[in-house]
């Protein structure tokens, strides 16, 4: 057995502000597919990034092909034959497929590119991923997202590849493309390549992997042959905390509607969506990536202009025009966006500067900011939300994700908003902070506010919501009451908008540029 061992990971850990990965022991063998799974934030990406040389471990050691292995950069790892296909695509959209494939080794002489040779080599590499119908000279920008993903994978199969890491490779692929990918993985396996396959689609893992490694909160909870476990057992291993199911009694006093959305739409992203949310209620929104969840919240908030549809807000409901976030905020609507760093925070500013953003009128007189009023407001928020910081003057970028999220929420609690739109409120934050956020949501409903919560974590959504609406391909396909839903029927609804034949036919004829 030991001759088969390709990579040994011993006691590897990673600590940023806090530990995100600890004491990982894992062995990868040649010709084996190991599935790496776990919830969002469990440490899957961190572990794979360490192996691929994108990040340095803060503890532990690794051995690759019997030699100590500590790649300081991606280039070092790639030279040894460790390749990683990342979730976000690393292609240059304006260059052709061929140029993208051979970007770091363009064939040529004296700096002149040998176009013929490039084309031929690209053809070979593309055929391997079933992309032979595409002209290698097509600019990558003209390909659909699925094909771009296949190009990205093809690029990593060029040259020496002993260990291939695939991070959620099928997230954007059609069924046909997934088949091609699996065939390719099978071929690689026969060639003796080790594959680390990251995904939480359990059906896929069962088909492709021999062993499964489950991460939970930065710890490896099991590494076993995959056939030993049922899907139910795996789900339980991934979650590992049934206690969460009991944090909140669904006993709520639900009042009159505070927000009514009618026929809201924008292009093909959001199509004819109607629903209402009542005081003291949490309306959950579920859907696959790209189903239009974030887009819908942004439309309600006026961050993007809607093509059609009406909104009614207030007590009693009144028809309103919301054409900007300013208008939404005036009407008492708040958006806690998914992209905290990009759209929520002023990272280099203090906690208090972040909390008063949008509340400056409350702490100023005649345009002058009162520093004592500002500090008072900040300290009030910090106490109310349990924000862990070294004080109101600490820079917000130094806080953990959960505390950053609380800062964004705190900003809105100082204003009297009645409708709060939460987009992935617990993304990338640790378990403790998640519980804090759940309690906060419950508290807000007790105060009679109407909440809309978007989450890709189904169990979380089933935990906090009173009703769950499911978006599929931009449409609100169904709404479930608490008690009527199950993971299965929610997932089925989420997929229902995509079961259209053209998805497959377009994959079968990839040669025609749009």
């Amino acid at each position, binding site marked *: 057995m030991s001759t088969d061992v390709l990579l040994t990971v011993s006691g590897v850990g990673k600590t940023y502000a806090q530990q995100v990965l600890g004491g990982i022991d894992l062995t990868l063998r040649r010709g084996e597919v190991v599935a790496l799974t776990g919830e969002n934030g469990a440490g899957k990406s961190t572990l794979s990034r360490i192996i691929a040389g994108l990040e340095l471990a803060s503890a532990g050691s690794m051995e690759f092909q019997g030699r100590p292995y500590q790649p300081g950069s991606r280039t070092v790892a790639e030279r040894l034959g460790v390749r990683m296909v990342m979730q976000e695509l690393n292609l240059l959209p304006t260059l052709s497929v061929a140029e993208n494939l051979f970007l770091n080794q363009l064939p040529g002489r004296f700096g002149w590119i040998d176009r013929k040779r490039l084309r031929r080599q690209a053809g070979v590499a593309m055929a391997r991923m079933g992309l032979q119908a595409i002209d290698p000279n097509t600019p990558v920008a003209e390909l659909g997202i699925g094909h771009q993903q296949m190009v990205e994978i093809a690029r990593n199969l060029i040259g020496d590849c002993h260990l291939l890491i695939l991070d959620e490779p099928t997230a954007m692929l059609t069924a046909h493309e997934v088949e091609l990918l699996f065939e390719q993985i099978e071929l690689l396996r026969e060639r003796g390549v080790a594959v680390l396959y990251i995904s939480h689609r359990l059906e896929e893992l069962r088909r492709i992997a021999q062993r499964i490694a489950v991460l939970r909160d930065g710890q490896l909870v099991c590494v076993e042959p995959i056939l030993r476990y049922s899907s139910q057992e795996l789900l339980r291993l991934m979650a590992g905390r049934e206690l969460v199911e009991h944090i909140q009694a669904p006993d709520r006093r639900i009042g009159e509607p505070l927000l009514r959305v009618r026929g809201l739409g924008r292009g093909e992203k959001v199509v004819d969506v109607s629903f209402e949310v009542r005081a003291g209620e949490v309306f959950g929104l579920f859907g696959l990536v790209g189903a239009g969840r974030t887009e819908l919240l942004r439309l309600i908030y006026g961050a993007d202009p809607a093509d059609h549809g009406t909104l009614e807000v207030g007590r009693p409901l009144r028809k309103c025009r919301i054409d900007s976030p300013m208008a939404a905020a005036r009407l008492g609507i708040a958006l806690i966006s998914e992209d905290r760093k990009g*759209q929520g925070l002023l990272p280099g500013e203090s906690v208090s500067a972040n909390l008063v953003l949008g509340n400056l009128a409350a702490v100023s007189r005649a345009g002058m900011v009162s520093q004592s009023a500002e500090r008072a407001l900040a300290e009030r928020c910090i106490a109310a939300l349990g924000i862990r910081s070294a004080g109101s003057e600490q820079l917000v970028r130094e806080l953990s994700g959960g505390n950053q999220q609380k800062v964004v929420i705190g900003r809105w609690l100082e204003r009297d908003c009645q409708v709060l739109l939460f987009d992935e409120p617990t993304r990338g934050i640790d378990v403790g902070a998640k519980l804090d956020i759940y309690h906060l949501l419950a508290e807000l409903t007790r105060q009679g506010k109407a909440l809309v919560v978007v989450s890709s974590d189904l169990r979380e959504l089933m935990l906090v919501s009173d009703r769950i609406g499911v978006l599929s391909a931009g449409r609100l396909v169904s709404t479930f009451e608490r008690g009527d839903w199950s993971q299965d029927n929610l997932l089925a609804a989420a997929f229902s908008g995509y079961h259209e034949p053209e998805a497959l036919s377009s994959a079968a004829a990839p040669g025609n540029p749009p």
Partner: protein
Amino acid sequence: MKTSSLGTAPTAKRAPGRLAFGTCFGLAGALLGMVALFSLLSSHFLSYATFSTLANQIPDLMVLAVGMTFVLVIGGIDLSVGSVLALAGSVVSVAMLGWGWSVLPAALLGMGSAALVGSLTGSITVAWRIPSFIVSLGVLEMARGAAYQLTDSRTAYVGDALAWLSDPIAFGISPSFLIALAVIVLAQLVLVRTVFGRYLVAIGTNEEAVRLAGVDPRPYRILVFALMGLLAGLAALFQVSRLEAADPNAGSGLELQVIAAVVIGGTSLMGGRGSVVSTFFGVLIISVLAAGLAQIGASEPTKRIITGAVIVIAVIIDTYRSRRTGRWN
């Protein structure tokens, strides 16, 4: 969060828009070092004459640099300041000579037209979401052309009606220098203490976050460019006062000097970070350097090479400093 620590040590207490005291010490140190160096190299340097020349020449640069600090803080840039200055001077000369206006309304009209041009730059930037770099590059040409058109490409002598602005009143200091100092103090207070200033820093840090917090960033953006124009108009008055003439060629290439002064002061070209007081030091460093090099008899080419090198070195030092404080990610 029960498991997490209380986070890292608190950083030095500082209001947004104010740079750390260390920066000011560093700039003051650099300035003193330069003064000492030039005093050693030239026995005439440390004199009343040098001081008085400096104090009379820098007010234009001071007020322009204040405006540019605001522009850079919101992540913009204004290349048109030199041309707008020339245009404002031309408007003053036309009002006084062509229409026979008295000096005060003419001066106000000059400043007003400069503010208008500035708000035009800002409005175009905001309305079509075009980088201010490009818009102000176009405005640079337009304003310069308009200045030539108004004055028939000739220097217009307006006489000594405005001369009192640049005549020393005490210790070689002129009213224009005092006005410029007042602008600096006021601007620093605005940047650090007012709602307006807070929003400028916030917009420069993360405009989308400001918008999603329910605050419309657009009026602030326009206002900053209007303010820049207004200050360019004020600088034009200082120049007209000193030269007793409006020159349509005035201020050509001045924008680069202004930006250099602001950047030497440590204001970030990426927006979100800046201080008017540091900008003042930047202006002093650039001006002392120019005066000192002239005193020791450096040739024009040498002066330009050295000044250019100082700008680059200042930015390198600043990059190291901000890397140490750890910029976002």
